[in-house]
């Protein structure tokens, strides 16, 4: 046997061993069929449609963050205009990115413009307002809008990741979808009921501790306004209570509070949060939290100065409870609310991971139950095996001994395909299994092209080795052409598709690339090896 052929065979054997190792962990020598199956099942990552689980697409409402920045700017602007004693009729929001200041006192117009430019010029453009005699329009710069959107998305992604990590699910995925920049893909394998995960993801998580300005609870907004003569004291606002809060309200009853606007402590000051049984209400739970040192330095004096007053615990803009401050508290607190263990657990989880900068909307949700997943695997594998056997039988009948050559190439093709999936950690989906089946059908094409050409050359009277040479030579370009076109469409499928469809594109591409190797390199090696052992004049079995 010529040395070149020997090296070829060694190389191919090496490839086979590498693949088998990747698939079933050969050197560890699995001792039984069950161990082989087990190893194999572990190496190949299954997609959600085969494993069961939930796939969700979330949309971060970035406009809210933009609007929030606008509101904050209005607040600051109003404050500064008062400090500088510039007379302005009103400063109000036109939309998410525009602020209108009307009726600026004409003599102070220059001071107004200077103030606007100094304090807000970095992020806002000032221009006279159309249709107003002495009004100005502040427009948020597009670069600022883009920046806010980017940070909001990044922060949301981080927060959601943290929350899901704490849920203790197996191998969750939280990544941008790549389809639109404010969409996030969440995959929870094995999770048949995503209700709890969804609630945890969507929870705002904004915690604020604020002083109750007048120590009273009102049963309606009107009553609260009436008690203050129609105008709230400066620096306060009306906040509604949760109807199930632990202040003893029955469900459905409203509760309103007049709170200080500025919080003493927010969720960002938390050092930790955890749930524990509620000592006063057996069977119910509460959430305990502790504050960072810097926050404690603010909180201690605050509580000391306000003993006897009430402090509101505000969660996502609703008053959760408003207990009386009984003594100085340094750095801890608790949130009561008639929570079940799971509710307390989830709230602690949400507080620990931080608040979401903008709310989340669900765009897509697909849940595959485990029974469907198991059925899909069974059907997919069964169809693959049957098509493989059918093709193999046909090849041997039609091409005789060369058919065996094609069968070997085909089997090696599949082994390489599966090993590549295992090595790259690519996910096998149900369309992916279809891709495997297609690789069987389309991959055989390469061998057929070569063999038909060999037959033609033999019929034209060429000798065996020359016919084989010509066969592979002529067919080579055609094989490349056909594979390139299919790979091109698979690439577009990969770019445009999601999950299962991507799995299909990946399996098809890997299968076809492996096919070039097996149908040209390996098949040729087998032919050469066979020729070397065969007597010169004998007919080639094809």
């Amino acid at each position, binding site marked *: 046997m010529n040395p070149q052929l020997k090296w070829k065979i060694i190389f191919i054997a090496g490839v086979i061993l590498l693949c088998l190792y990747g698939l079933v962990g050969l050197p560890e020598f699995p001792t039984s069929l069950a161990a082989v199956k087990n190893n194999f099942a572990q190496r190949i990552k299954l997609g959600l449609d085969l494993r069961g689980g939930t796939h969700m697409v979330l949309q971060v409402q970035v406009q809210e963050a933009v609007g929030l920045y606008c509101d904050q700017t209005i607040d600051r602007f109003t404050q500064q205009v008062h400090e500088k004693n510039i007379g302005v009729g009103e400063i109000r929001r036109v939309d998410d990115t525009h602020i209108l200041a009307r009726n600026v006192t004409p003599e102070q117009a220059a001071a107004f413009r200077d103030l606007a430019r100094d304090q807000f010029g970095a992020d806002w453009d000032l221009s006279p307002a159309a249709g107003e005699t002495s009004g100005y329009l502040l427009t948020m710069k597009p670069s600022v809008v883009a920046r806010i959107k980017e940070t909001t998305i990044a922060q949301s992604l981080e927060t959601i990741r943290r929350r899901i990590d704490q849920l203790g699910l197996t191998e969750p995925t939280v990544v941008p979808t790549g389809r639109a920049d404010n969409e996030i893909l969440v995959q929870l394998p094995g999770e048949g009921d995503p209700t709890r995960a969804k609630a945890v993801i969507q929870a705002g998580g904004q915690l604020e501790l604020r002083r109750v300005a007048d120590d009273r609870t009102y049963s309606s907004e009107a009553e609260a306004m009436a008690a203050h003569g129609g105008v709230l004291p400066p620096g306060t606002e009306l906040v509604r209570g949760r109807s199930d809060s632990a202040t003893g309200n029955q469900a459905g009853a409203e509760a309103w509070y007049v709170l200080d606007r500025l919080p003493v402590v927010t969720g960002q000051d938390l050092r930790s949060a955890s749930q524990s049984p509620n000592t006063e209400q057996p069977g119910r739970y509460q959430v305990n939290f502790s504050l960072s040192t810097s926050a404690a330095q603010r909180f201690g004096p605050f509580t000391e100065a306000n003993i006897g007053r009430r402090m509101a615990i505000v969660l996502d803009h609703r008053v959760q409870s408003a207990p009386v401050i009984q003594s100085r508290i340094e750095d801890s607190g608790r949130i009561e609310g008639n929570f079940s263990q799971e509710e307390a657990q989830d709230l602690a989880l949400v507080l620990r991971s931080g608040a979401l900068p903008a709310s989340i909307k669900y765009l897509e949700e697909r849940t595959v*139950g*485990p*029974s469907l997943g198991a059925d899909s695997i069974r*059907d997919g594998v069964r169809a693959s095996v049957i098509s493989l056997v059918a093709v193999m039988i046909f090849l041997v009948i039609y091409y005789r001994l060369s058919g065996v050559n094609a069968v070997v190439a085909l089997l090696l093709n599949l082994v390489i395909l599966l090993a590549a999936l295992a090595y790259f950690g690519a996910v096998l989906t149900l369309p992916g299994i279809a891709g495997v089946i297609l690789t069987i*059908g389309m991959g055989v094409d390469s061998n057929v092209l070569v063999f*038909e050409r060999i037959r*033609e050359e033999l019929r034209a009277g060429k000798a065996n080795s020359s016919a084989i040479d010509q066969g592979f030579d002529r067919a080579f370009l055609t094989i490349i052409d056909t594979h390139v*076109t299919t790979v091109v469409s698979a690439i577009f499928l990969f770019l445009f598709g999601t999950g299962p469809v991507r799995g299909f594109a990946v399996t098809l591409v890997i299968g076809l690339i492996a096919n070039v190797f097996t149908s040209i390199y390996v098949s040729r090696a087998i032919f050469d090896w066979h020729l070397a052992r065969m007597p010169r004049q004998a007919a080639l079995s094809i």
Partner: protein
Amino acid sequence: MEFFHHVDLDWMGKAKYFVSLSLALLVIGGISLYRHGGLRYGVDFKGGTYVYVRFAGKPPVDAIRKGLAAEGLGNSVIQPISDISNPNANDVVIQLEQKGEGSEALDSGKQTVINALHKTFGSAALQDFNAATPTALADYLTQKDPLALGPTGGPRYTQLAQAIADFRDQRRSGLLTNFDDLLGVPGVNSAVLASLHDGFALSNFTIRNVEIVGPKVGAQLRRQAILATLYALAGMLVYIAFRFEWVYGAAAVVAVFHDVLITLGFFSLFHFEISLTVIAALLTLVGYSMNDTIVIFDRVRENLRLMRRDSLETIVNRSINQTLSRTILTSGLTFITVLVLFLMGGQVLRSFSFAMVVGVVVGTYSSFGIAAPIVVVWHRFRGEKAVAGTGSAAEKRLAAAGRR
């Protein structure tokens, strides 16, 4: 063994029959599309909520409808799904329209459907065993402790619960009809069975999977699907125009376009839904049909160099005859594989495999029935008898020299 030796059919002469067949199929497909008001989009492109439910016996559609109506979902579509590969399955898909852009939760429809089903077919007092997650089973068993394992029994029960759930999902398709079946699971004894009996009821249905897609997403995906297909076609056109003459590329693209249209027509005729995986199938069959056409064109290019004196028509005929063996074989084998997939691949891949089955057949015949004739007719139209058909200028010069 060999099918086709020395075939000498006049393909180009018969071209008019192929084209008429194509036109007929296109017209039939077009009429069907018109009658049904366009393509049937699946949830991926239409948006909405699809709940797939499997029942233990024949699905009681009327009872389902009444149950849903009681929850305000009276106008949902309930469709039994028949599955060729599993004719005894009793599946139903409940389709809810997507209610606008409301602020209500995306999954409110799904929750309502599940509640309605539980109210109609489940037990009010006990939990439904068929809907219980392994965690719920483990929690229950740990609490009741039927094996008297004491406070450390938690992990054992978690394992047992997983084994029970796996048995139900993998061996009984998620629908257990008799608790006694569980005796086959290692670790389950009569004490465990008794405690399960106490805490769980066996309903006659299980939710197989749920798909909820918002309406905006659906429209976006539709647009992307069309774009992806067009880009893929453009990419291939460029590649082929580069490897052959541009008219070959155009002919191949026309043939592939024709394939996609006929396949879509068949989808309409047979009431299959277009989903994301169907788009995957369409793009694959685009690639497959191109392959087929390229094989013929490759041979034409080779024969143009060898058979200088013959007319293009003769050369093309010869090329098709020479590659006929390969064409029948490959299409035959690919057809067998996708047919097996269609018959045995399960419900989920049904639309996908149908597209492939139709696509393989149409894609094969479009190569010699549509693409090749276009090339011949074009050259005839340009008044040339034989043309150097490669993209390389040197070869063109060589061919021109040879002709003189």
